[in-house]
Each structure stands twice: as C-alpha cells, then as structure tokens.
C-alpha cells in the first residue's frame, strides 16, 4: 500500500501532517473513509457570526430523515457515500465534469460532488437507491436499462440513470435528440452512448405506458 501525503493546511489552522492510506479509500472502506473525513479540526467556529452553520443536521434522503454530522466544507457526494453509506452515487472526476455523482435535489439533477451538503438542508435528496418504489418495482428508467443492456462497465450508470429519470419524468414524450441533450452532462468512457440512448428511448416508452 502506498502512503500519500496530503498538502498541509496553511495559516492559523495549521495541523500536524495528516496521512492516510490511499488503498483503504480506494477499497471503499466506509469506516476508514469517515475517520479521514472527521480528521478535521475538532471544533469549528461555526455559529460565531450570524449565518454560521450548525454541523449536526437532518437530511431528507430518499424519503427518510437522516441525522448526520457534516463538516462545513463537505460535499454532498462525500456525505452520501461515506457517512450515509449510499455508495450507489459514484465519484468519478470530483470536478462537475463526468456526471457519475448525479443526484436529484427537489427533482432537479445536480452534481453531488460539487455542492456542499449544507446547501441542501431542508431539500429532498433522491439518489439511485431511492429510484425504485418501496415495493421493489423498478423505475421505468431502470427497467429500460435492463431491457436494453444499456451499459458496459456501468460505473457511469447511476449518474446517467438519475439524469434520465429526471428528464423522462418531466418529458414523457421526448425524442432521442432531446434525450441526448438531457444526458449531455454525463460521460461514458466505454463510449456506449448508442445503447444508453436506446435505453433512454425505451424509458420514454415505458413512462408513456405507465401514464
């Protein structure tokens, strides 16, 4: 395993050098990852000035209320994956480019890697885990992807499916070109776009049948 050094923080809050094992994070070990997340300053000065944030918060995720301790500078993708265990949401680029981390906030798609968890307080978060109905019936988009075999490696699939779901729910008679535009914020490195668009078209069809 390789040891990797994190760039040291500068300025008054200059901690001792923090190290962690990259391999542990890569393996997706939730416990290690969250201990890394919590390795920030023990007490932040939130609340000193008006508008400072309270770390303990309740998030509405997939219809459930989840209490969670969130650092002020923590992204939603980090909270979902490493604190709430919702690892269906993937982190690809972490730079608002690839779309693997796409989730719905109040029914609208967002890159969860590029928003702070504190920005979604009080809003409805839906992740790939919350797409199927409580009785286990797949969302039309999920069914469409299964019907069409829409992805190869499928790392990008949760993000694509979330983008597709938000779009077909609002546009149940969308064309292939419109689907392509709606999915333009998601990248597939396998280059499987044709089958992804086949799935999108199938999803539109299934939405139409359901309506």
């Amino acid at each position: 395993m390789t040891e990797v050094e994190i760039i040291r923080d500068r300025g008054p809050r200059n901690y001792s050098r923090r190290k962690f094992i990259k391999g542990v994070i890569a393996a997706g070990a939730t416990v290690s990852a969250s201990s890394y997340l919590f390795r920030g300053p023990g007490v932040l000065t939130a609340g000193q000035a008006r508008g400072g944030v309270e770390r303990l918060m309740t998030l509405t995720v997939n219809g459930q209320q989840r209490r969670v301790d969130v650092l002020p500078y923590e992204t939603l993708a980090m909270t979902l994956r490493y604190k709430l265990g919702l690892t269906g949401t993937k982190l690809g680029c972490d730079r608002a480019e690839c779309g693997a981390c796409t989730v719905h906030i109040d029914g609208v798609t967002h890159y969860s890697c590029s928003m702070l968890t504190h920005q979604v307080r009080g809003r409805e978060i839906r992740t790939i885990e919350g797409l199927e109905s409580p009785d286990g019936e797949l969302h039309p988009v999920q069914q469409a992807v299964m019907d069409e075999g829409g992805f190869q490696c499928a790392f990008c699939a949760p993000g694509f499916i979330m983008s597709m779901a938000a779009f077909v729910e609002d546009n149940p008679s969308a064309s292939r070109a419109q689907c392509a535009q709606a999915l333009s914020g998601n990248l597939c490195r396998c280059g499987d776009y044709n089958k992804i668009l086949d799935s999108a078209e199938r999803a539109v069809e299934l939405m139409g049948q359901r309506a």
Partner: protein
Amino acid sequence: MAVIRDMIPPCELFQPASIGDALNLLDQYGENSWVLAGGLDSFDWFKDRIKRPEAIVDLGGIEELSGIRADGDGLVIGPMTSLTEVATHPDIVGRFGLLAQAAEHVATPQIRNQGTLGGNLAQDTRCWYYRGGWPCYRAGGNICYASAPKAMNAEHCVFGASRCVAINPSDTAPATIALDAQMVVTNSSGETVYDAEDFFIGPGIDIERMTVMEPGDLLTAIRIPGTWAGADFYFEKIRDRQSWDFSLVTVASAMRTSGGTIQDARISVNGVAPYPMRLDEAERAVIGQAPTDDIGVAAGDIAIRRAQPLRHNAYKLPLMKNLVRRAVRAEV
C-alpha cells in the same frame, strides 16, 4: 509525490439570510472571504488548494438575490437565479431571447440547474497556467506563462492583452452587453450601478480581477432594460466539443431593422479578450445599411482590425470575423 485532492480543506461556512449579513461577513473577513453562488467554479479552486479562503459566504439563503421580476418595460434578474431558469423563463425567452440562448449554451444540464447568472457573469478566467496554480501576474506573480515563447496559448486572447493574455469565458456576458444590461454592485457603503460594458475589466485596469468587483462587493441585481425587447437577436458559441465545453469565440448581437435597413445594433464578442468586447466600430459600420452578406463581411473585417494573435491562436481571427458576419446577415 501524489497529491490528494478529494476534500476541500477546512474553512468556515456562513449562510446569511440577508444581503446586510452577507456584507458584514465580507467586511469582517476581507480578502480571506469567498462569495459562493452556484459553487461550480469555486469548489475546483478549493479542492486544488489554489484558492484558500478562511470563510465561505454562501448566498443561497438570501431570497432577494434570486428570481426574475418585471421592472417597467424591462426585467430585474437576481444574480442567484439559476441558468436553467434564465434559459426557460417565459419573459426572457419571449422578449430577451438572446440571454435565454446564452444561458442555454452554458455547460451541462446539471451545471445550469445549479450555476447562477451572477456566477456565470463574474466567473474567473480559464487560463490553464493560472488555473494550475502557477504564480503568474494574475495570481500575484511577475510573469505570464501563457505568452512565453513555447507556451500553449490556443485559447488565449487576441485583443486587450496587458501582461496577462487570459480571456473572459462567460457565455452570458456578451449577451448582457448586447442587451445594454446594468449590474448593481452593493457593498457596505452603498450601491453602484455599472453598464455591463464597464462591469467587465481587463488586466490593464486590474490584473487580478475580471470585473469591477473588489473584496466586500456583491453583485445584487442584473437589470435588463426594455430597449432591446423583441429585437432581432443572434447568438453563436464556437467550442471544441459540440456536446459541452467552454467557448473559443462567442458572438451575441441585437439589432433593430426597418425598411430593409439596420436602425440600431449592438454586437459583442467574447473569448477574444480578457473581457467581453463590444464592437462599437462594427456597429457603426452596419447602422444605416442593409443586413447583407457584404455588410457582414465589412463589419467582420473591421472587428478584427488591430488584433494581435499569439503563437497558437490566430485561428480566432477568421472565426471572429465570420461570427460577426453571420450576426449581421442573420437579420435578412
């Protein structure tokens, strides 16, 4: 040594509920504060450890900063209004379609859902040397890496260089200039209104800023006057990738024609200078003329006069010329 860049380094986060509270925080933290709108650009800076604010002031909780409302025969747009809303709002689509088109051409659906009009207007340059954390002029250093002899400068400026050769990447900025928009900038000592054209500044005025706004300033409203409502608009953004990308050259124009003659015109181009350029000379050349291809070519020629391309970006001249030409003749 590998560098882990998956967490934003520690800083404080404030979510004020009013403009007054936000301004107090900006005054309190001064240059160590960071105004957060959509955050799409901000988080990259933070994750890369290149910008290290002590306090982030998130404007998302300030209701008066978002939304679109009528103001006489024009509109007032809150800077925190999302680009999706700007691109789809009936008043903007119907009367100021130029701005709707510009907003629609920004990045991806997810980014438009979160990114704001104010953030898009006030965004920083994409110069990759500056973005990469190199200590260039814009970053407070004393060299421009992008104009060095072997520099990669295909996406840099052909006008307005002053030590720095970076460009303004905003898609909506040229549309605000073409619509004669005004920017309301507020700080703790009051409110100042700038014409869009004066809001954006080049390195000759201040090499570290893209707009007139200094630490402690907030963009609090974007006013679109009724002047150009329902005019003939043209918007075209040229980029390397069709799907989504930053602009290489973008043109935004508004014209009024009657009796086969252009009565009045605004033409603005972005991607060619450190600020969105208004092409006054080209405008004067087309007013009173018929919107023909010949006049378009003439306007394009005027537009690229005095350009000073760098080693790798001379392609921007024919690109700019042809975009101006299309903008003029599109009104036929």
